[in-house]
Structure formats: C-alpha cells, structure tokens
C-alpha cells in the first residue's frame, strides 16, 4: 500500500516536472536571448547557451532609468487599486446571483452574460468614457474602462458560490438572526477564499499586462505604464526600421540598437517584477485573507 502510494507520488512529480520544464524552458530561452550578443543571434539564431554574453539590450532599454521607474510606479499603483475594487465588485455581484430564489436572477445573469457577446466597438466605448467619465489623461483611465468588472469572472465566481456553499448554511445563518450582509461577510467570504484568490490573481495579471487603455487614454509620457512603454518601444523600433532610410540620424541610432535581443529584453522587463512578486502574492492572497477571516 505504502509503496503504491510512493509510486503514485513519483508519477505525479514526474508529470509536473515535465510540465514545469515545458513552461520554464521557453522563459529561460527568452532570458538567454535577451543577454546574448546581437551578432551571434543574427548569425546562429536563438540558443539556450549564448556563445557570448552582452547586456547591450538592457543598457539600451534602461538608458533612461527614471522613465522606467515611474512607469513601474504607475503600473503597481493601478494594479493594486484596480484589483481591490474589481474583486470587491465581482464578489458583490456574484454572490446574490448564486442564490436561486433571488428575484430577477435569470434576467440579471443574462444582463451580465450579454456583455460578453455583444460590444458596440472601440469607438463608442472610448467616447462614452471621454464624455461621461472624465478619465482621459488620468490614472483612472488605467483602472476603470473595461477592466473593473469582467462578466467572465462574475459568472465563474457565481458558479463557485452556488456549488461550494450549501443553501442550508445560508438559511441557518438567517435563522440565527443574521442579516444578509452579515451572512455574506461571516460565512460566504471565508468559505470562498480559494476562488477569490484565483480571480484576484487573474485580475492582477490583467491589470499588469494592460497597455491598450494606456495607449488610448493617455497622452502624457509621465503617465505611461510599463507594458505600454515596452510595447511602444518595440513598435517605434519597427517603424524606425521601416522608414529609417529617410533620416541619417535614425540610421545611426538603429546601428547601435540591439534589435533581436531587445525584443526579448522588453518581455523580461515587462514581466520580471511580477514573477518575483508572484510567490509573495500567492502567500498574501491565501494567508492574508484567511487570517482576516479567522479573526472576524
């Protein structure tokens, strides 16, 4: 019995080791390319073991360090606020919908789901935010439009609530004289920490990786976030290449630019802090909320 269990565990770990390698290896490749020498990449293609190491790509990107530091600040601030508000709203909307007896339950669910299907397009959406909610050229532009509530997350959370929380628990709570809001706080939230942590994580990734809102709503470079700064650098290089023949100055700059390696360095600069912060996040999500629940 014991040996079989050990064998099982061995099999499982082998599976996950392979899985990990499959996920990690491309990352190692990205990193290795980013610290390779430009000429060796253009001559021999990507390689896991660079023949000669060069940090030219990072030197090029981090030339103006204050710019990147400020962009990280913007990203971190917007991510933290965005995730908090978004998680709060998602939970508030998802829980009532999980109660079968709620009036208008079906209509409300459809109202939410419908937003996943039909959209009026980018133009009217942009105009709505510019005219109705003055977010243009403010940090709010990277928090509110499009990202504060995802129908997908609401419906997913709803289904968690309805399967992991038996109706009897809620009814018992109400019998004890607790209000709906107290039931939500004292019973529901503690019971649904795993899903809240998961959706919180996805929301974090969504906020961290967003650059489109920044592209549309932000004009001032002081408010650029990291992902937009990176995307912008990449597209600028591409356009410089396309139109370089028109300016000797641009040509000289391009000659000094490590183009192949910079692409990968951009990816690393964009996501590295998130990777380092991730284990901490995971701990924070799970233990932080759990301890809060126990105390309450």
């Amino acid at each position: 019995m014991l040996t079989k269990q050990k064998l099982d565990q061995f099999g499982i770990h082998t599976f996950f080791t392979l899985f990990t390698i499959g996920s990690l290896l491309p990352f190692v490749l990205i990193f290795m390319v980013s610290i390779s020498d430009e000429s060796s990449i253009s001559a021999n293609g990507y390689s896991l073991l660079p023949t000669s190491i060069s940090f030219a790509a990072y030197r090029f990107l981090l030339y103006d360090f204050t710019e990147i530091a400020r962009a990280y600040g913007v990203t971190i601030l917007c991510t933290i606020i965005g995730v908090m508000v978004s998680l709060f709203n998602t939970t508030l909307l998802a829980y009532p919908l999980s109660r079968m007896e709620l009036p208008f339950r079906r209509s409300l669910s459809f109202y939410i789901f419908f937003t996943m299907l039909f959209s009026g397009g980018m133009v009217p959406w942009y105009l709505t935010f510019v005219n109705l909610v003055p977010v243009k050229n403010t940090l709010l532009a990277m928090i509110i439009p499009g990202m504060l509530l995802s129908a997908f997350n609401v419906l997913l959370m709803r289904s968690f609530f309805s399967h992991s929380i038996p109706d009897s628990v809620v009814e018992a709570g109400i019998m004890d004289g607790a209000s709906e809001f107290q039931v939500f706080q004292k019973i529901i939230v503690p019971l649904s920490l795993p899903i809240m942590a998961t959706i919180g994580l996805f929301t974090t990734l969504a906020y961290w990786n967003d650059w489109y809102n920044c592209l549309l709503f932000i004009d001032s470079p002081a408010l650029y976030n990291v992902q937009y700064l990176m995307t912008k650098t990449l597209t600028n290089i591409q356009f410089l290449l396309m139109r370089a023949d028109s300016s000797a100055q641009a040509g000289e700059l391009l000659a000094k630019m490590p183009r192949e390696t910079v692409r990968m360095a951009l990816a690393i600069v964009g996501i590295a802090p998130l990777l380092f912060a991730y284990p901490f996040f995971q701990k924070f999500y799970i233990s932080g909320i759990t301890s809060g629940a126990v105390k309450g």
Partner: protein
Amino acid sequence: MKASEAVLMQSKAEIKIWKKQRDFLRKLNKFKWLLLMTLPGVAYLFINNYIPMYGVILAFKQYNYADGIFGSPWSGFDNFKFLFNSPDAYTITRNTIGYNIVFIFLNLVLALLTALLINEIKEKVVSRFYQSMFLLPHIVSMVIVAYLVYSFLNMESGLINRLLDKWLDKEAIAWYSEAKYWPYVLVIVNAWKHVGYLSIIYFAAIIGIDKEYYEAATIDGAGKWRQMTRITLPLIAPVITTMTLLSVSGILRSDFGLFFQVPMNTGALLSTTNTIDTFVYRAMLTLGDIGMSSAAGIYQSFISLLLILAANYAVRLVNKQDALF
C-alpha cells in the same frame, strides 16, 4: 346563482393576483439587501458595455466623418456582404469553429487532469511552486510566443530541424510552407498557453470541496480513483459546466495572436490558419472600414448568441442551477 358564482370567481382571481403581488413584494423586501449589492456592478456594466452599444448601428451605415455615427447614410446589409461572398467563407468558418471545439475539449481534459493531480500533492510548498510555473505561459505575449515558435521551426537554425537533421537523420521539414502541420502546432501552442491557467481555476474549485466527503469515503474504503470520479468530479461539475458554456460563447472568435502572429502571417498556411478574425484583419489592412469591421463583430456575436441560447436551454433541462441564465 350564476352571477354570484362569477363574482366569487372574479374575487378569487383578484385575491390570487393580489397574493402573488404581495408575495413578490415580500420577496423583494426579503432580498432588498442582496439586490442592492448587485447595484455597483450592474451600473458599471451599464456604462462600460450597454451605453456604447449604440455603436452597432455602424454596421448598417456607410460611415463618413462629416456626418458622424448617427448622420451617415444607411447602407442596409452591405457591410456584411464580404463575410459571405468570399470564396474563403467556408474555410474561415470551419477553421474558427473547428479549432475552438478542439481547444475547448482538449484544454478541459488536460486542465482537469492537471488540477486533480496537483490536488494529490501533499507538500504545500511544492504544489505552490508548480502552480506558479503553470502561469508562466499565460503571461507571455503572443508576439513573443511567435518568435519562440519560429526559433523552433525555422529551416536555417530551428531547433526541431536541427534535431531531425543531427540525431534522427531525417530531412528538415519546411514548417512554414506546409499547411498540414499547422493544426497540430496551433493546438499544442494553445494548450501550452492555457492549460495551466485553466487548471488553476479547477484546482480552486477542488480545494473548495468539504474534506468530510473524502473522510467518509475513505472510511467506506473507496480508493483514490473512486473518490475522484464519485466525489470530486460531480462536485465541481457546475464549474465545468459554466466554464464550458462560457467557452462556447466565444466559439466564433479566435485569438488573433495565435492565428496571425504565430504562423508569421504566411500565405501558404492560410488554408489551416485563416479564421474569421484574421480574415477580417487582412481585409481591413487596406480598407480600414469601420462599418465592415463592426459588421463582422455583430455576425460573430449573433451566431454565438444563438448557439449559447441552445446550449443554455439544454443545460437547463438537466439542472436549472448550472445554467448560465
């Protein structure tokens, strides 16, 4: 007699209606806090999604800047024509739906398997480490993925071709000129990118299950396999249903990065890589017509709506609680 009976009937009916109304008001009163809770979310969706929906009229307009969105002349269904008149109409519909069906099915199976296995890991730290690793592919942008795939598949220095050449003594494969390989490439890339992410959702559902079920099962002598199939799967079935229904709602849409950037926009591969979204993108490159692109969006949404209504109805027949609406 008859008259009084009629009066009685009428008053009975009135009482019934009145009772109904009273019950409804009572119910409303009982749930007022819960309804109030939904208010911020409902209001947000109204502003973010419902107000901009007037934009759908663009699909029926021949847009010009001077007249604006509302003033431009109507054009009926002209903007939709290009989706159906094209000789590629069949190919792009087949590719879009076909790939999505495979993605939905394969990703579900792989993600469930992964989630079930990770639940078997006793050491918390190790389990957490694996979970972090799963998310890595999810955060890499498709542009980068495209370059990675290229570094594996190109002829000059591609890792796979070097492997074929050196160790297996086989001819190198011209991946970017043979459409027949791409269904496999795309399915693998898609699974690589999404399975980890999905498995985390299912894992969250699994750890939400009350441990008492398993304890009882162990006492009854049920093995791991039985516990998985008799306890875990049925209990997370609502989540599986929701996830699948939500995926079905996107069955006419495709990941632009996956189908355009990963095959490096190569013409020779179009028969297996062209989807509705890449078709529209190629068409709009020179035309830049806002009416036609919104027509394509509406077409995709409308077909998805029909499909999801049918799927949701089917689910309701089995279990009302699991349906989306």
